[in-house]
Each structure stands twice: as structure tokens, then as C-alpha cells.
């Protein structure tokens, strides 16, 4: 089942929760609505479900205008953040609910209902829990019951509101993988809401990044992560180091590093910032690069995070770099060590975070980066804002 949104808007008082959204969701998609709290992602999900009516715009389901269809007619399964299991019903009765409330003509026979519920409980690996009550289950188990219950009525779209928000990390990881597998097996369209970029990247085929009720960017996870179209998206998907572009003698610099060739610096002297992810920072010999001192070393399983105090940067804004464990084991960086910092990649945006002009991605060619370096100490000492 495909879903198309055209100019959908929803106000709550003076607050525009969803603001003029156009979105095409093809049949079979596994899509994440990603954004911080208050960005309108849950409202958008509820509009797709039919739990909210948009003030403007239309919702099309399989090409038919479904804007005013009630949720009952939309063939959607909705899973709430808190699971909303019926407390007074056993797990079996919860899953059977959607079948039992069908009109008599469509209602399956009792034996068929039992068979279907049992097969759904098998699917979510809770075949033993049929006569338990929700209060006797863990968070992850409740989540699976909620999923089984939603699947019982054969929805063509599965809508999930922060499906893994209330679970601990281990269970969450397991359930993410499980949801992906389920999606591949059952081939329905799934849309889930999350504020967790990691989750969106791990689970979804398509990510829609929302900001203040508007779509900031849509794309496959790798694209949204690697080619963010705005500083907002760049910041929201993963860690960033933020540096102000400094103009000296008609040339643009990040610290002592000359980036004048960057086409995103379209006009001389314009206020620009550069965002650099921790793994895009290269650490090398003190002589080659922006001189810095290692302030902290954190070994986090396969990666090692280094806090670097770069010359001329305020101590409150250390650079954060990530290197592989292998590299760390080979070179053994230690606190207090003097190193040279280089940027493998950076992206320049207008300094005003409200403006969303296109930021072009620069992948520094080794030669260009090399030649872009200004003699370290002297240049950084004169760091004029």
C-alpha cells in the first residue's frame, strides 16, 4: 500500500506541528520519521493513521484520497509508544481483539481465531505467553505483543510510534533486527517515528528528517548521513565538531588549515561554519597539521575517542576525533601527547543555523589538503576572529 501526502498541515493553537508536508511512501517501504521531540513526527504519523485530521492538504492511500477516512478503514496497524496493551485481557485476548470485533459476516470461526493468534504468537516468539497478562511481561515482550496484535488484522501499513524508546539497549538492538527481518518477510509498508538517529540508520530504508514540522531531508540512510543538506541534518545525525571559518588575508581557514578552494564559500568574507564528524579527523605527526594536545582517551570497544585541545581554540571546545582500535593499538596515543590534526572531510554551511542554503561536501584530496596547510604555529597564533 502506497501513501502520498500533499501539502499536509496541522496546527495546535498557534503552533504548527506539521507544516506543508509533501511525501511519497512507496508500497513496501521501511521508513523512519526522524527528528527531535516537538518536530511534528508523531503528529505526522497520526495523520497517516487517521488519528488526526490535517487542516490543509491531502492523504492518498493507493492513489485514493483518504484524508477523511477513519482509522478503521485505512488498514493500518498502529503501535503506540507505551504499547497500549489492554490490561484486563490476557496476551491471547489482546492479539485476538481485532479478529473478535469484526462484524459477524467477516469474523473468523473460534478455532480459526485461535489458530491465527497462536501463529502470531509464534511469530513474535511468545507462544508460551498466551494466558499471561500484560503486567506480567517485560517491556520487550509487551512490545512484541503489541506488534502481534496490530498484525492480527492483516494491516497493509504498520505505523510505530517510538517503537523501541522505552527499552534497554540490548533488547532494543535485538528488536530492531527482528523488526527488519519481519518487514522483509511480511512485505508490508512500515513507518516508524524515532528521535534516535542510530535507530533510524540501523532499521530504515528511507529516512525523513523533520525540523519544526517541515521535511529537512529525505534519503537513504547513507546519503542522509554523508550528504546532509543542512547543518541541522548534519548535527542531528551523529556527532560533529563545529568550526567557524576564519578569513585571513583573503583566504578562508579552519584554524590554520586553508580551505579557500571550497565552492561552498561562495562569497569572500561570508559568515560560514564547517562541520566535521569525529571520524573525519585524522591525527598524525605534530609537524603535519594543526598542532594539538591529546586531553582525553576513551576506548569504546572497536573505536577510540580522543579529545584534542587544538592550538588557538578555547579549552571549552575541544575537538573530538575517532580512530579505529587497530590504529590506536598501533600508535598508542596518550594524554598530553602533541599531535597534528588534519581534516579528511568537512562540510561548510552558512553560520546562521536558521538559513538552510546548500552546503556542498568537500572531500579533501590529499594533495590539496597538504598544500592547504599554512605553517602551523605562527598562523594559529594570530587567529583573528
Amino acid at each position, binding site marked *: 500500500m502506497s501513501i502520498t501526502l500533499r501539502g499536509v498541515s496541522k496546527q495546535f493553537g498557534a503552533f504548527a506541528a506539521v507544516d506543508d508536508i509533501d511525501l511519497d511512501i512507496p508500497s513496501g517501504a521501511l521508513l523512519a520519521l526522524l527528528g527531535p521531540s516537538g518536530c511534528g513526527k508523531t503528529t505526522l504519523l497520526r495523520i497517516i493513521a487517521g488519528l488526526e485530521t490535517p487542516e490543509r492538504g491531502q492523504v492518498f492511500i493507493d492513489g485514493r484520497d483518504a484524508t477523511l477516512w477513519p482509522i478503521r478503514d485505512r488498514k493500518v496497524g*498502529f503501535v*503506540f509508544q507505551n504499547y*497500549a496493551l*489492554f*490490561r484486563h485481557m490476557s496476551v491471547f485476548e489482546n492479539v485476538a481483539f*481485532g479478529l473478535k470485533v469484526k462484524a459477524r459476516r467477516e469474523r473468523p470461526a473460534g478455532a480459526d481465531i485461535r489458530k491465527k493468534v497462536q501463529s502470531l504468537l509464534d511469530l513474535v516468539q511468545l507462544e508460551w505467553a498466551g*494466558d499471561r*497478562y500484560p503486567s*506480567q511481561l517485560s517491556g520487550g515482550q509487551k512490545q512484541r505483543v503489541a506488534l502481534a496484535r*496490530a498484525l492480527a488484522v492483516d494491516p497493509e501499513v504498520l505505523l510505530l510510534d517510538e517503537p523501541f524508546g522505552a527499552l534497554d539497549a540490548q533488547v532494543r538492538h535485538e528488536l530492531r533486527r527482528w523488526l527488519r527481518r519481519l518487514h522483509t518477510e511480511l512485505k508490508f509498508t512500515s513507518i516508524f517515528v524515532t528521535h534516535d538517529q542510530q535507530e533510524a540508520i540501523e532499521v530504515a530504508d528511507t529516512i525523513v528528517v523533520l525540523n519544526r514540522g517541515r521535511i529537512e531531508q529525505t534519503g537513504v540512510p547513507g546519503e542522509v548521513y554523508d550528504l546532509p543538506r543542512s547543518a541541522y541534518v548534519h548535527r542531528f545525525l551523529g556527532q560533529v565538531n563545529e568550526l567557524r571559518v576564519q578569513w585571513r588575508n583573503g583566504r578562508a581557514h579552519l584554524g590554520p588549515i586553508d580551505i579557500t578552494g571550497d565552492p561552498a564559500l561562495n562569497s569572500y568574507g561570508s559568515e560560514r561554519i564547517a562541520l566535521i564528524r569525529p571520524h573525519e579527523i585524522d591525527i598524525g605527526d605534530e609537524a603535519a597539521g594543526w598542532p594539538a594536545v591529546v586531553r582525553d582517551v576513551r576506548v569504546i570497544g572497536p573505536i577510540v575517542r580522543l579529545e584534542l585541545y587544538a592550538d588557538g581554540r578555547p579549552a571549552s571546545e575541544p575537538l573530538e576525533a575517532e580512530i579505529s582500535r587497530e590504529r590506536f593499538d598501533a600508535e598508542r596515543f596518550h594524554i598530553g601527547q602533541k599531535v597534528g590534526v588534519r581534516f579528511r572531510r568537512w562540510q561548510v554551511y552558512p553560520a546562521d543555523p536558521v538559513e538552510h542554503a546548500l552546503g556542498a561536501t568537500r572531500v579533501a584530496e590529499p594533495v590539496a589538503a597538504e598544500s592547504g596547510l599554512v605553517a602551523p604555529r605562527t598562523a594559529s597564533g594570530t587567529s583573528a576572529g
Partner: protein
Amino acid sequence: MEAPALLRDQDVPTTRSLRERGSRRLEIRWGRYLLIAVALAFVAAFLLMPLLVVFTQAFAKGAGAYLAAVSDPTAWAAIKLTLMVAAIAVPMNLVFGVVAAWTITKFQFRGKSALITLIDLPFAVSPVIAGLTFILLFGARGWFGAYLQAHDIRVVFAVPGIVLATIFVTFPFVARELIPVMQAQGKDDEETALSLGANGWQVFWHVTLPNIRWGLLYGVLLCNARAMGEFGAVSVVSGHIRGLTNTMPLHVEILYNEYNYAAAFAVASLLALLALLTLAGKSLMEWRQPELKHGTRRKGARTEK
């Protein structure tokens, strides 16, 4: 000399602090006893003693007089009327209360806060005033008086008036009890049920009602207690016709004014008994509610993995 002084320096504050801590614990304990004693004394003086008086006075002239007072035809009529009024008013307020609470908690609409305030109105208005408004509406010279007279319908000084007054006075109990419960539960369960294809009635019957049943029963009990005990509003509209429009509280008053204390207290004791039964029912429910929750847990000792 230095070493002992040092020792003492350390020693003295320790014992002092220990003693302080001990006395503070004692203070807390005494404070607790005192508060419990005050509460118990208050309950005894203002709740138990009156109850005791009712029953001792009722039997002051012996069991024979008690039975005679209770089985008096006018007393019987009062008892029947009281039960009938409650039997009409409570179910109606049950329906009104559920509808009002549902409307207020599940929908957004203009005038919602006004509705919430209006529901509280019967609590704010003196019951006597409430009774008088019904006289002004339905009495011989009231707004609808002429119409009612022309069609030979008696509202005031008759059973319909008593029922109306009782419904008015007991209106808030169910809604007031349900609104916070339903607000706390939110709409998720209902919306889930809708997404699973349930219609409005199925949502209410299978999802909402089970979620609110305890609050609902509690509200009904309170409503019932007040319906049977209401005096002020009913007194104004009843007309005090013996054997016809006297409810139990009104009958008690009449007997009392006739210096027939034993009979008055005998009927009063029946009212008190009904109140006690209501309270017993309430405690039974409160006691059963957690039991019900544990009951479901009894079966499931096994946990996954």
C-alpha cells in the same frame, strides 16, 4: 596531655550526635503516636459516637418498639420511596456521568471547561436552593406550572419532583470520580481498539469500561449513599405527605418533631445501616481490587528465558 585531649575531642561530638539522633528518633515516634491518637479520637467523637447514639436510642424502648416503628405503614412507605428514588436516580446519573466524563476526556471542544464547572454546580449550590429552583420551575406558579396543571401532571409535592431533586443533587458523583481516572488513562487504548477495527460501542464496552470499572463503582456507591440520604432539596419539593411523598430522612424528621424519639431513631438506624452497607461494599471492592491483580499473577510463575 595532647593525645587524650585529641581523643576526647573526637569522642564527645560522636556521643552527642548519637544521643541527638536517638532523641530525634524518639521525637518522631512520639509524634507518630500523637497523630494517630488525635485521628482516632476525632473519628470516635465525630463518627462513632453519633452512630452509637443512633442505635442505642433506636432500641431505647426495647426491640418491640423498634420493630413497631420500622413496620409502621408510613415508615414502610418512606423506605420504599427512598429505595425507588435511588433506583431511578442512580442509574440515570450513572449514564449521565459516564457520558459526561467520556465527552470531557476523549474530545476537544469549545466550552469544555464550562461543562466541567457546570458539573460541579450541584456541589456548590445549597440543596435547599436546588429544591427551590424546582418549585420555581414546576410549582403551581412556576414557569411550567400552568402547562403541567393543564395536563394534570404533578411534579412538585410528588414523586417526580423528589426524583428530579435527587438526580440534581447527586449529579456530580459519577462524573467527578471518572474524569481523573479517564484523564490519567489517556486515549491510547481507545485509539488502538479503533485501529484494530472496533466500532464505538465495542471500544466502550471492551476497552473503556473495564479500564474505569472501579472508579465507576465507587462513584455509583457515593451517588447511591447521597441519593438515599438527601434531605434539603427533597424536603423542599416533597410537601411532606405521609405515606406518599416522605422519604426516610423526611420521615425521621417528622417523627422527631413529634417527640417520637425511639421511632425516629429506629428509622434513622435503618438509614445508617444502608450507609454502612454502602461503605462495606466500597471496602469490599477496594479489598478485592488488588486481590484481582494478584490473582492474575498467581498462574504465571514461569518467566521467559
